[in-house]
Structures are given as structure tokens and as C-alpha cells.
């Protein structure tokens, strides 16, 4: 968007038209500017059609314009005739976040979330996140809840934030917690990248946006410097270690940061590693569906015996860890 707006260009354009429409998504930014300038056309019509007719939410698709400006018919979706279930985004097969969310769900913790792929932890099967506002809010929300509700929640509250969001806007609220004598536990989900928006470099990665070497922030040092004394690191593929680390931090009467450390599975470097897909052994499966609790999209749970897609499974072993019957094994094991 150009700012300041090209006034002469806009005024000379409006001069040659009969009616002025300003079609912009969300807030009436250009429209307000035109009104301030009191833009008129030769017909003296200064009445501008804008947000008085158009919604200030969602995309302005051709159908929305047709409905609102031309009073035409909207889309005829087939939804009334056949059910079309929505398809929400999901965490990737083998996503390190799934290990953390499985544990949060298991421990029945209240968790304040933040902005990133990991916001998907709010969806089933995890239902692990209770709030999501804006970047950095997860930590501040947790501290706020702790201030007013600690007597109700006890020590069953954690904040969850990704590495890039943390560096962007998580440090200030954490300083607030230390400064104001909080005891909040924060889970820093360090997957070594900015996952959701497409793997942009951030100050914790040691690479600039142009991929040149640069200083990589050392989280442990940073946390110590702002006054967090308890910092521990766990591997989210190790569910027992994950649970122990979170419980240990929660038991403290001081602020703590536990770092979940494992790279995003979509990073080129991770994808280049050999993967050994798993399968469900029919004879061993008791159809208990416990493995579905890891929320892996490589597992199709619509059949009585869950099916693992050999193409999509990356062999993280998480689902196998949940199965009580040792029914999930690497395909290679059977072939050997």
C-alpha cells in the first residue's frame, strides 16, 4: 500500500467518474482519507460508497461484492444437500509440538497459548490451549491468571510460546513476571525456526534472513540474565522426560522456563534425514484408539484398526509409545 496516498492521482480519477466506490478489506483506510480531502466528482456527488455497504470483516470476494453492491444472489453452496465437513489445518506428522500437547492434555493443565503452528494445540485431540490473543500474550495472560486465580488453579497453569514468537515479544512479559515476583511456568517450544509463516530466520537461529551467519541468541543465557533461575531442556519425543520437566517446573515457587527442543520436521535439514515409517500390526491391535491421542495426520482413525500412511509417517515413534500392545512398529522390522 502506498502512503501517503497519491492525492492528485486519486482526485483526477474521481473527477472522471459518476460514482465513487472504495473497495478495501477490513478498516476504511483509503475511504477515510478521501472523506478528509472531501473528494468530489464533476457531478458534485461526494457520497462515497464504502463501509456503509461493505463488511469490515473477511475477504471481499466477487460474491461478497455481488451481494452487497449489486444486490445479486450469493453463492449457492451444496452444503444444504450434502454434508461438507471443514478441514482445519493440523500439526504435521511427527511435529515436536504434539509430544508437548499430549502431556499438557494428560496433566489437565490450563495453558495460555500464543501465535504459531502450535496454536493448533487448541484443537482435538489435544484441546490443550485455553487462550490465544496476540504475539507474546500467552506469557502475560498466564501471569495475569496467576495473579487473580492462583488460589483456584493452584499450580496447574503454564504458558506456551514458540521460539520465534518468544524472541519477538515474549521477553518483556517474562521480565514482568520476574520483576513482579510471579511463579509462572513457561514452556518455550524451540523448533529452531519460524514454522507457521514459512521458515523465516530469527535471532535464535544463527542465520540472517539472507542466510548469512550471525550471532545466535543463547536462550539459557538470556533467561538467566533476566532472572529466571530454573531453566531446563527436554526432548518432546521423549514423553516421560517431557512430563517430568513440566512437573518439576510447576512444583517450584519461582518462575521457570522449560525448553522443548527439537527442530521443525518441515525444515529441509530434517526432511533430508532418512525416515523409517511405522505400521499397525493387525493381529496385535486391540482397537483401543489410544494412538490417535497424538493427533498425527499420518494415522487414519476412521477404520476400526487405525491405518498409518507409509508415505506420510516420518517414524517419530510417538504413536508407538502410546500403544499398550506394541502394535505399532517400524515397517522395516517386519521386512527384516
Amino acid at each position, binding site marked *: 500500500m502506498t502512503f501517503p496516498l497519491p492525492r492528485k492521482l486519486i482526485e483526477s480519477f474521481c473527477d472522471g467518474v459518476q460514482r465513487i466506490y472504495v473497495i478495501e478489506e477490513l478498516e476504511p483506510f483509503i475511504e477515510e482519507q478521501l472523506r478528509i480531502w472531501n473528494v468530489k466528482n464533476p457531478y458534485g456527488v461526494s457520497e462515497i460508497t464504502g463501509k456503509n455497504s461493505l463488511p469490515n470483516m473477511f475477504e471481499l470476494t466477487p*460474491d461478497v461484492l455481488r451481494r452487497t453492491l449489486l444486490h445479486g444472489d450469493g453463492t449457492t453452496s*451444496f452444503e444444504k444437500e450434502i454434508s461438507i*465437513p471443514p*478441514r482445519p*489445518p493440523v500439526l504435521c506428522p511427527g511435529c515436536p509440538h504434539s509430544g508437548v500437547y499430549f502431556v499438557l492434555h494428560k496433566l489437565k493443565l490450563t495453558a495460555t497459548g500464543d501465535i504459531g503452528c502450535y496454536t493448533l494445540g487448541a*484443537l*482435538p485431540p489435544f484441546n490443550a490451549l485455553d487462550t490465544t490473543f496476540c504475539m507474546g500474550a500467552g506469557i502475560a495472560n498466564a501471569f495475569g491468571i496467576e495473579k487473580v486465580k492462583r488460589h483456584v488453579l493452584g499450580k496447574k497453569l503454564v504458558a506456551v510460546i514458540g521460539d520465534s514468537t518468544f524472541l519477538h515479544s515474549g521477553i518483556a512479559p517474562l521480565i514482568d513476571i520476574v520483576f513482579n515476583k510471579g511463579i509462572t511456568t513457561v514452556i518455550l517450544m524451540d523448533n529452531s525456526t519460524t514454522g507457521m509463516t514459512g521458515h523465516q530466520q530469527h535471532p535464535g537461529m544463527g542465520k540472517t534472513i539472507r542466510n548469512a551467519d550471525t550471532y545466535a541468541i543463547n536462550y539459557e543465557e538470556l533467561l538467566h540474565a533476566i532472572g529466571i533461575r530454573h531453566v531446563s531442556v527436554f526432548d518432546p519425543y521423549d514423553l516421560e522426560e517431557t512430563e517430568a520437566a513440566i512437573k518439576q517446573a510447576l512444583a517450584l515457587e519461582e518462575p521457570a522456563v522449560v525448553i522443548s527442543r527439537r527442530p521443525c520436521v518441515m525444515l529441509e535439514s530434517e526432511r533430508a534425514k532418512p525416515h523409517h515409517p511405522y505400521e499397525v500390526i493387525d493381529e496385535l491391535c486391540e482397537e483401543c484408539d489410544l494412538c490417535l491421542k497424538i493427533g498425527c495426520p499420518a494415522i487414519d482413525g476412521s477404520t476400526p484398526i487405525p491405518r498409518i500412511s507409509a*508415505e506420510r509417517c516420518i517414524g517419530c515413534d510417538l504413536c508407538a509409545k502410546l500403544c499398550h500392545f506394541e502394535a505399532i512398529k517400524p515397517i522395516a522390522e517386519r521386512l527384516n
Partner: protein
Amino acid sequence: MANDPGKNLLFAGVGGQGVLLVAELAARAAIHAGFDAKKTEVHGAAQRGGSVVSHVRFASKVYSPLTPAGEVDILVALEKLEGLRWASFVRPSGLIILNEEERVPAQLTDKPVEYPRQIDTFLIGKGFQTVLINATEIATSLGNYRAANIVLLGAIADAAGIPMDSWMAVIRQHLPPKILELNINAFENGIELKRRTHAAASHLTDH
């Protein structure tokens, strides 16, 4: 190309299936053939397994990349349910190429998701030219299931009205050498399959 109305294409699928790549190839093929082309996409969730859709429009002159509902000439669905989701965008008796692959969406509520049955029958009932292709299986047999998107692209090559040498030129130009042969194979398989189903269908109507 003077006053060629061109075509409105819509590509739909699940994040990770390669929707954006085939849309890109189609737009570039149209430009290579001398059309004006525009493309837009919804891909915030592309890596996260959500619904992904990309509009491609080409003609002698294109003003806006979004095709209004009811005006898509050809819908390419890399996954069946995604085909159903976007079918209302297709014009009456327009062409829908459906991959047979079914991916059950993740649950949003505590109720398990019921995958709609007989999507193809429903779409045929609506009067669309519906072509079902097992692109994933074909791609797997050619060496990599990921090439299913290119099989489906091949299936619209004739109907799109873009010359074959333009298709081939952009495929050669934009796909890495390592997977080029596989993808050319996949593309040609798609062309063949569509021609065969077309022949079978006209055979049916002949009688």
C-alpha cells in the same frame, strides 16, 4: 489471442499435496501460450494439512485473479472432499477432475468426522462433467505418490486449451532435473487417462 475468453481454473486440495505448484505451472503455461494470466491462492495452512485452493484465470486480458462462484470452467481436485467443497464454484456442466484419494479431515469437535460418501455421484447428479482419476495410485506406480498433482494437471491439458508445447516447456523449465522424467511421465499418463475416459464417455452417449 485477440478476444480469447480463455479459461477459469480452480485447483483445490490438502496442504502438502502440491496444489500451489500445479496452479503455478498452469498459469505459466498460459502465459507461455501468449495469454494474460492471473493467479491467487489461499495457503496460510498449506504446510499444515488444511484446505488449500488456488485460482488461475487466463484470457486475452484478465482483470482480477478471483473467479466468482459459478464461473469456473475446470476444477482440479487433488482430494475428493476438497473437490466437493469447491464444486459450487464450477459453471453449469463444467469439468471437474477428481482425484480418488480420500483424506479424512481432522476433528474440530469431539464428534468423529464423517467423510461424505459418493461425492462423484453427487457431482454427476449436479450435471458436472465429472472425471474420477486415481492419480495417487498412478503416481505411486510411476515412482512417487507426490507426482499425483502432475497426473491431474495432465488430465486437464487438452480441456484447458493451452498448446501441448507450452505445457511441456514450463514443466521442463520449472521442475528440478532430478524429478523431471518422473513428472513428464506423470503428465503424459494424465493426458492419456483423460483421453481414454473421454472416449469411453462419448462411446456411451453414442448408444
